Every structure is written in C-alpha cells, then in structure tokens.
C-alpha cells in the first residue's frame, strides 16, 4: 500500500472555478473571478491557451491555494502534475486541420503544440513552475484512477507535491469541466497544521477487503472520478471508503479515502 495526504482541491461548476476544499461551502461567482485573476498569467497569456488548458490551470492553481501552498517556498523540481482527459486539445487539432486546408488563418503558431492531449498538464507546469513529473493519461474514470496510481508512485520516488486532476470538454458542452487536488507526501507536521485526508492505493484489487464502504462506478468520466475522491469524506460509520471504477480497458486498484 502506498499513501499520501490530500491537502487541497478545487473543481469547476458551469465552467468556472466554483468549488474547493478544505472550505466546505461552494464559492460564488465573485470568488471565481478572484481565482481567475489570481492566476499567474496575464490576460494576453490567457488568450493564447486553449480552453481546456486554461480551465485546468485555473483549477490546479486554486487547488494549490486551498492546500496552503501559495507563497510557500519549495523546490520546483519536487512539484509534479498528472492530468487525465478524454479529449483535451481536440479543438486545437481541428484548428490545425483547418489551417492546412486553407479554411482558417491568423491562428498563432503557438497554438499548434496545444493540439496534443498533454497541453493542460504542460501549461499548468509552465505557469505554476512545476518542474517535477508531468504526465497525462487518456481515458475516462480508469485514466483518472491510473493518475492517482502514478501520482502516488511519484511521491514514493521523491516528489513532494503532486497535483492530480482531470479536464474534459465533451462535444456537446460549451465549457470544459475540470477538477484538481493536491497530494503531498505524508509528513507528521501536516496533520497538526492543516486539514487533510489520507488517500491510498493498493497494489492489487484483492487486497482491499478491509474497506468499510465500497463505491463502484461504471462508465463515468475522469472529472467525475476525481470529484468523487474529493467529495468522499469518511464518517464515523464508514471510516475507510474505497472507490473503484469499472470501464475502459483497464484494471486499476481502488483509490481509498480515510481520515488522516
């Protein structure tokens, strides 16, 4: 079993940053605007980002704030990002096709490399100066669960802080959805200074018989899976909650949430 502590999280509601933890209430639009303006990027810079990158960056920055890491000096090489997505960069890819066929002009050349799935994680690393591991996984809930596995593995291998999240812009939706959370290495000082939850992931599914409550999700998207982990607050009756996803082509051990 490997484990880490969840110290902060943020997610979108209707496209804007509207929710966060460890503050239980849902923030209003004013807070959303505040979060957006607090991004380490100017208006001009924002315009150069594809919408999925912008949304994921805003979420990741808000999660970092919630974790109390703003202004905290850390070695940037110890901070990493893992992002799960089904379709990030698709609109930029279509743009490149339109340019090649002569249908569109005046698209900045810098948007081209954002046609890859990894644009949100890459842009978040650039603007948050996260020089540690940077990974993107493609798929639905299984990709998000895999993101937890890789994030926690990187904490084992030496990273101090991993921002794990998901972003998607479904074809029928005008605005993307995103969710991000901050996982940190387990250190005794964390428990006394900040609210935390323990997140663990087991090597193999069969080792998880001890969980008090098992949530099994089928065919949900990556954002929903990350939100499920964020929203899971073990109570007195169920102290250990295991979240498993079924779907896609992968077997991923459950993500387990416990009180710290």
């Amino acid at each position, binding site marked *: 079993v490997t484990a880490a502590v969840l110290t902060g999280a943020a997610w979108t509601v209707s496209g804007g940053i509207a929710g966060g933890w460890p503050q239980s209430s849902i923030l209003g639009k004013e807070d959303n605007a505040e979060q957006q303006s607090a991004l380490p990027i100017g208006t001009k810079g924002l315009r150069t980002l594809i919408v999925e990158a912008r949304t994921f960056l805003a979420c990741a920055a808000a999660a970092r704030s919630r974790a109390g890491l703003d202004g905290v000096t850390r070695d940037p090489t110890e901070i*990493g*990002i893992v992002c799960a997505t089904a*379709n990030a960069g698709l609109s930029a890819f279509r743009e490149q096709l339109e340019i090649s066929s002569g249908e569109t002009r005046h698209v900045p050349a810098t948007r081209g490399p954002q*046609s890859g799935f*990894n*644009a949100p994680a890459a*842009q978040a690393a650039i603007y948050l100066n996260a*020089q540690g591991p940077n990974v993107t996984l493609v798929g639905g809930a299984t990709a998000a669960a895999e993101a937890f596995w890789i994030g926690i593995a990187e904490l084992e291998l030496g990273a101090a802080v991993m921002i794990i999240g998901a972003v998607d812009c479904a*074809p029928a939706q005008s605005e993307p959805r995103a969710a991000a959370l901050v996982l940190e290495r387990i250190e005794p000082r964390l428990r006394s200074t900040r609210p935390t939850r323990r997140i663990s992931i087991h090597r193999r599914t069969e080792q998880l018989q001890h969980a008090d409550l098992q949530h099994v999700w089928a065919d949900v998207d990556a954002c929903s899976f990350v939100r499920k982990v964020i929203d899971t607050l073990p109570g007195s009756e169920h102290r250990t909650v295991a979240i498993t996803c079924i779907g896609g082509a992968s077997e991923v051990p459950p993500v387990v949430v416990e009180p710290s």
Partner: protein
Amino acid sequence: VTDSVAVTGVGVCSPLGQREEYWSGLLSGRSAFTAIDRFDASSFVSDRAAVIQDVDVASADVPAVTAFALTAAQEALTDAAVDVTMDGASTGVYVGTTLATRPSIEPRRGVEPAPALPTRDFALLCRPLVERFNLGGPAALIPTGCAAGNHAIGYAAHVVASGRADRMLAGGAEELSWAIVGMFSRLGALSPSTPRPFDSARDGVLMGEGAVFLLLERASSALARGARIYGLIAGYANVSDAHNMTAPHPQGRGAQYAMRRALEMSAVDAHDVDFICGHGTATRLNDVAEARAVHGVFANAGLRVPVTSIKGAVGHTLGAASAMSCVAVLLAMRDSIVPATTGCETPDPDCALNVVLEPREQVVRTAMCNAFGFGGSISSLILRRR
C-alpha cells in the same frame, strides 16, 4: 524502478521494417524518407516523410496507428516467447502516443475520413491491444508528446517492480498526421532537405510513423523460464522543463535534471554511461540545448560518450520516437555495436558531442535514452546490460 525489471521481448513496426530489418537499416545508414502519398503535403516545406509501406493502412479495419501497434505488440510477445492469450490476467499495456487515433478524421487519399471522432476515440488504440492479447492488467494511453514512449516504459517498469502486474507491454505508437506535418512546417521545424541530427548544416526534421513495444517482466521470472534478457530498466525520470510550449530551455535545464535524476535512481555514475541515444531532432535549437544538457551532466565525459540519433533514418515518430531509440539501445547491447547517426556528416562544433558517424563496435553496458517533447515534457531512461 530497480534492476529487477528485464526486457525480454522487442517488437517494432517502423518505416525500415520490423525489429531485425529496422536494426539492419539503422546499421547500414538507410533513411526511409519517401514522398508522402497518403495525403496532399504539397503546400508544406517538405512533402517527404518516413512512411510505413508494408502495413495496408487503407484496408485495415482499425486506424493505422492501431494496426502498427498490434503488429509491434505481436512481435514483442512472440520474441519473448510468452503466450499471454492463455495467461494475460496479470499482463498490462502502457502506450505512449501524441495523437492516438486523431488523424482518422483527416482527409486522406483513398480513405474516407471519419466524420467525427467518437467520444471515446482513445479506446480505439488501447482496447484492441487488450482484446487481441487478452490483457487483464493495467492499461493506459500516456499521451505526453515526443517523450511518451519513455514515459510508458518507465511507468510500466514501476508497475512490474511494484508487483502490480507480472508483465507489461510498453512502448509507443504514432501514425503520420496531415495536421502535424503542417504544424511542423509552419513552426519552421520541418527540413526542406533531410534530417541531419547534430550536423552543422542541420535544418530541421522530417516526420515518421511507427510503433514499438517492449515486454517487461521481473528478471527473476525471466531467468526462471529461461528467457533471453535484452537489458534491464535501471532508472527513469520524467520531468517538466516548465519553460515554453515549443522551445526547450536554452541551457537544457529540464533535460539536465532528468538525466541526473535517472542516473541517481539507477545508482549509475555518469562516467559509466557508454552510449547515449539522444533525442536529436536536427532542429537548430533542440540539438544545441540537448548538447548543453549532456555537457552539464557529463562534464568532460560529454566529449567522450558516443551519441546517436535515429531521426535521420526513421524521422520523428513523436510518441513512438523514444521507444524506437530504446530498441536501438537494446540491440546495441545485444550485438555490441553502436549505430551511426544517419544524416550527420559534419558534427556541429557548437554541440561538441561525440556523434557516431559510422557504426562502431563496442560493448554497451549502460546506456541512456533521452526524449524531449512539446510542452517541456522530458524523460530520461537508463538501460543496463545484464
């Protein structure tokens, strides 16, 4: 990642052919570039690319990238002499890629483009591998650009080392994309002639396509079943340059950190590395930044250690590129010969690397495989001969 993860199978689907043809092509200095006939590239800086000719893309019932991946995976499994269809429950697959199946919506000669990508298009690359080979272990697409193959291999090694799966197929797959050839052309990264990595006259890269898979398993398991071991995955690092979406950090900051971290993880001293398979895209900025990073890590040994790039032979295969480099390293270990950098004739003094200009007979005990991608995605893998 520990020394206990062994490579026991190697599968290649490349513009030079499958594993042994790919290897003999690299050793003979062949370059696989031909005129692109799959789509109209006449408006780009170059209409040439390294294209796979011996897989019938037009009549395949899966996207081309998936056909390449299935071909390479089958060769890796056959090479490893394991029948996962009978015992695939604890075998998984990690696939590095940049675009996955996105090119299937592009206009192509003789092929009707898909009207739109299905919402779950990613499944069109990963799921056929899972279903064809009955894989029940972890399965994921890792689309981290040009460093994706290394990422897939590095994380798959961790999956095996941690005991989460007994075996992993890991590598990368990519097909030629009209949009991406156009993008490289517009970015000024496409060569109007031919790729010449680390050469004074280099003027850019040409694109390629292909797939590579390695079969990873614990060395103890491999030895117990009498399997041939090509090499061991000794260490791995994945970092971000956190600098710019397109340009590398001028001093190769992230690249230096990745190399140092991979060496540290594998407990290897830089002086013990006897071969580097570099990223070597043959673009002006990348090759110099990579060379500076090598010198930053290896100091004086940077002038001595042989460096090769395979992109002058097979082009830039994006998500498959670093996995193809890994194969070059593993086969160099097997045959004790280092392939030359096809296309390089006059090494650039600004790079000041020991670029291999002719195939060189030498024992390769420890090698490094580097990859750098758009978005600052950087990975470094250390392979060791058993």
